[in-house]
């Protein structure tokens, strides 16, 4: 799947002589392109990140450059309470990483190696949360498992089950579980990619040498996917550390405020403390950098298990026998619990005024209420505009970046790539503090444009990596052949490269659009009533405790995402990726 193609293990490095030849002869238009790209990336990505650090020591948020204070630093790095929060945040996100990876790896193994039926359907079920908003997911779980009023709790009470059966999703461990369920697709995709690349005979050799299914899985398969799992743990941990919306919702009751929520509190409280927010942000950035470094190391190690013979034979699937039924029931239950039940609960909630199961009365009152509000229309329009603009711009810049780094290798192309990937290390809410500091006082502030600017930077890594993998899979001889036939470079790009890149570009477009529609972490610091978005509207309703309205907006948002996927599939027809021969 597109999102998790951050691994670069399948990309053979271009032979050095070629790279040298290219470097010497980069023509003038090429240099102009590179210069423009450096400028774009500098303004889009590098400066806001710098401004996070500048704002951390700025006394006046409106004038971050020329004022100076160490109050923010003192209140963050010098505050034991903050270190405690940091510890709790790490505990939460690391637990998420472990759980999401464990579940994802187990599912990947079951789907890739055993003879369970309906594999494609189950794979879809497992990946589904990737296309859904984590916040709306949390909202849905709240409908299911809020103390007392949650649907499951009411059902349990009606069935006279003992009190300990009831669940309370507004607790730390449920917060971790719900967040982890959102991240399971990441673990699944990383491990399943690794399982599929693995040489089948490694496992067969173990069987022939006398080891059974379980022993083979533990002694050969597990070591082979170990690095992918490690990478998944790190990636999910980084991502969960920057997660603001879900902990803000589910942690409200127990007063659990992970670092991202504390950043938000610092800016939204009165008086707002932007220096503190930025200083806290720098802590998150530094943490993420360490994590990303570990992630890169992990990915580099994982290539030794890859198939050496080009011969891919249908491997014999493990026959589960009676366990097959158990597994199928388990997977259905998983689908039910992670996606179907929560969204059903959300739907039910949006169609009724009362939370009480006994006097539920289906009504469209909430819907018409929400639709009547002018802010919904604004939010819907804004969301469509912002996500479409972001998707187009991010993929455009991402494609340029990956083209220059993959195809026009030159001194510093690695650095360019690193800059484009760096927003991965900067959680959305932290990046927003940088954008905020940079643009506060400029006419751009308070417009949709500033959101697009922030979003494009945030999702540039995804767009760059997906299109970069696309370029890496296309042998450069395809373009060279076009040049040999007399086409100019731009003709070669237009007639050969772009048509072949269509699947990757489409995948990147869909992905960035979906991520932008559901984005809260970045927008929460940048929106104004005029630039309201669906995701923010839903979040605001939820924090004002009007859950039915939040549910309605959440459903509209989900519908928008589904419509967009369908549209993109029809218009772009991504099709299969052209594989290197």
């Amino acid at each position, binding site marked *: 799947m597109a999102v998790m193609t951050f691994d670069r293990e399948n990309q053979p490095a271009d032979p050095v002589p070629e790279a040298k030849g290219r470097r010497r002869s980069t023509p003038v238009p090429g240099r102009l392109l590179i210069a423009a790209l450096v400028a774009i990336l500098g303004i889009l990505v590098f400066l806001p990140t710098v401004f996070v650090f500048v704002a951390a020591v700025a006394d006046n948020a409106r004038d971050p450059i020329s004022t100076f204070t160490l109050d923010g630093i003192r209140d963050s790095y010098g505050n034991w309470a903050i270190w405690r929060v940091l510890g709790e945040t790490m505990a939460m996100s690391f637990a998420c990483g472990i759980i999401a990876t464990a579940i994802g790896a187990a599912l990947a193994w079951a789907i890739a190696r055993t003879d369970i039926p309906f594999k494609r359907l189950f794979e879809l079920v497992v990946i589904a949360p990737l296309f859904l908003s984590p916040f709306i997911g949390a909202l849905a779980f709240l409908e299911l498992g809020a103390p007392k009023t949650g649907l499951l709790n009411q059902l349990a009470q009606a069935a006279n089950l003992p009190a300990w059966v009831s669940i309370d999703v507004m607790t730390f461990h449920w917060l971790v579980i719900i967040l982890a369920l959102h991240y399971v697709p990441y673990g699944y995709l990383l491990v399943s990619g690794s399982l599929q690349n693995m040489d089948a005979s490694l496992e067969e050799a173990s069987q022939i040498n*006398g080891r059974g299914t379980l022993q083979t899985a533990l002694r050969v398969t597990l070591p082979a996917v170990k690095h992918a799992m490690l990478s998944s743990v790190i990636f999910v941990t980084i991502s969960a550390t920057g997660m603001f919306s879900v902990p803000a919702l589910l942690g409200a009751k127990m007063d659990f405020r992970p670092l991202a929520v504390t950043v938000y509190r610092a800016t939204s409280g009165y008086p707002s403390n932007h220096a503190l927010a930025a200083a806290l942000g720098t802590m998150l950035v530094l943490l993420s950098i360490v994590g990303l470094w570990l992630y890169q190391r992990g990915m580099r190690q994982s290539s030794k298990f890859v198939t050496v013979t080009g011969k891919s034979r249908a491997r014999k699937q493990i026959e589960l026998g009676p366990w097959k039924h158990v597994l199928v029931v388990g997977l259905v239950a998983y689908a039910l619990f992670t996606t179907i039940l929560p969204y059903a609960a959300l739907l039910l909630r949006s169609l009724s005024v009362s939370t009480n199961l006994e006097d539920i009365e289906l009504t469209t009152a909430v819907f018409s209420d929400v639709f009547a509000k002018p802010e919904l229309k604004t939010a819907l329009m804004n969301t469509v505009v912002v996500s479409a603009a972001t998707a187009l711009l991010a993929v455009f810049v991402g494609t340029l970046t990956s083209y220059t780094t993959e195809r026009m290798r030159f001194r510093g192309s690695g650095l360019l790539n690193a800059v484009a990937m760096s927003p991965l290390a900067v959680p959305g809410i932290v990046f927003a503090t940088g954008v905020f500091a940079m643009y506060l006082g400029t006419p751009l502030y308070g417009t949709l444009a500033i959101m697009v600017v922030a979003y494009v930077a945030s999702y540039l890594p995804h767009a760059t990596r997906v299109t970069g993998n696309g370029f890496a899979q296309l042998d450069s001889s395809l373009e060279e052949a076009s040049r040999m036939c007399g086409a100019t470079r731009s003709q070669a790009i237009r007639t050969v490269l772009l048509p072949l890149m269509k699947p990757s570009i489409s995948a990147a477009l869909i992905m960035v659009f979906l991520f932008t529609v559901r984005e809260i972490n970045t927008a929460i610091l940048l929106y104004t009533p005029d630039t309201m978005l669906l995701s923010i509207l839903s979040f605001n309703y939820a924090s004002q405790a009007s859950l039915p309205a939040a549910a309605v907006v959440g459903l509209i948002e989900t519908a928008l995402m589904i419509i967009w996927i369908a549209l993109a599939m029809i218009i772009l027809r991504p099709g299969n990726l052209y594989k290197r021969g």
Partner: protein
Amino acid sequence: MNQKNAQAPAKASQADFDLEIKGLVASYGSSVAVNELNLTIGRSEFVTLLGPSGCGKTTTLRCVAGLHTPSGGDIELAGRRVFGGGTNVPPNKRDINMVFQSYAVWPHMTTLENVMYGLKAKKMDGRLARQKAGDMLDLVGLEAFADRYATDLSGGQQQRVALARALATEPSLVLMDEPLSNLDAQLRARMRDEIRQIQKSTSTSVLYVTHDQSEALSMSDRVVVMHDGLIQQVGDPWSLYNRPANGFVATFVGDANVLDGTVTGVEQDLFTVSLPTLGDGTVLEVALAAGAPRPSHGQQISVAFRPEWVDVIDDDPTRPLGRNQIRTTLLTSEFLGSRFERRYRAGNVDLRVQTVSGPTSPPASIGTEQMLSLSPDHLTWFPAEQTKPGEEDDSEAGDPILTTAGTPA
């Protein structure tokens, strides 16, 4: 074919065969890869399945390994039924081992750990297992690399690790799936010899799969030639090359000229056959080995001979033809140093001929008329085949010269 003894019941621990396959059928989806295959491997025997890709040889091997589930038939290993009649023993309980084409050396273990793996699975005492694995590494000449990780080894060395690992568990049968195909030509020749030596010194039974005829001929006690999921011929390398059972074997194992003809007379130790495609009225004498099957008068047969069995007579083209001599024109001649590979036109067929020439005789030029002499001892025969529709097309597309049998070019 040595399958007369296949019926012998072998339930005792001292079985006659290390492997006995009866009526094996295997398919992938709707396509049948192996059709009713019977095969036995005796004690310490090295048997090779030889055939082009897609002939079912690897599928047969994987069925024996338990890595592919056959759709029918029986497989017995050392007298123990591992497949058929409701049993299907998983690969880890079959008392076999395998050398994979991709080596399948585990990259997260050292060389020694790789070799010890199967021993530990057998619950062998750790010290003993280490000792035994060390001995195995000694055997393949890798004792110095015991603590290296497999990924630090060269292809040939990884191949040796795979071999040592397969032999370490002392299985009743070792399967080898094109183990040399990823090595370069020089190394391949050396490993060929080495595997054969080790197999002999450990008296292990081996079922070897390859598409390379020189591997099959040089290493095996017996070779099983397969095509389209069917066994074409089973025999020792010498008789396979010198007495091919049909046109496929003749042309797949080495080069051959195959010509269709009619038997015109049978005598005590030779018979005559008319071969009109070589030119009107051409009749050749073919020697009959003692005890070999004899053709009957008027039978349609194919006569086959190897390119190196032909003698070229550089002579006056007007001279009358002698016994078993034919008039030809030189079409092409390729000089390969040690020999010439030539094509001659005779009648309406092309013949492949290999000749050697010394320093005193300059090569003939293209278009020269030369006589070829085919000694009766250097001709072999098999009954003419009813060519199945479609099959002929396949082979003809592959190499027109090799299948000139009866079809005017």
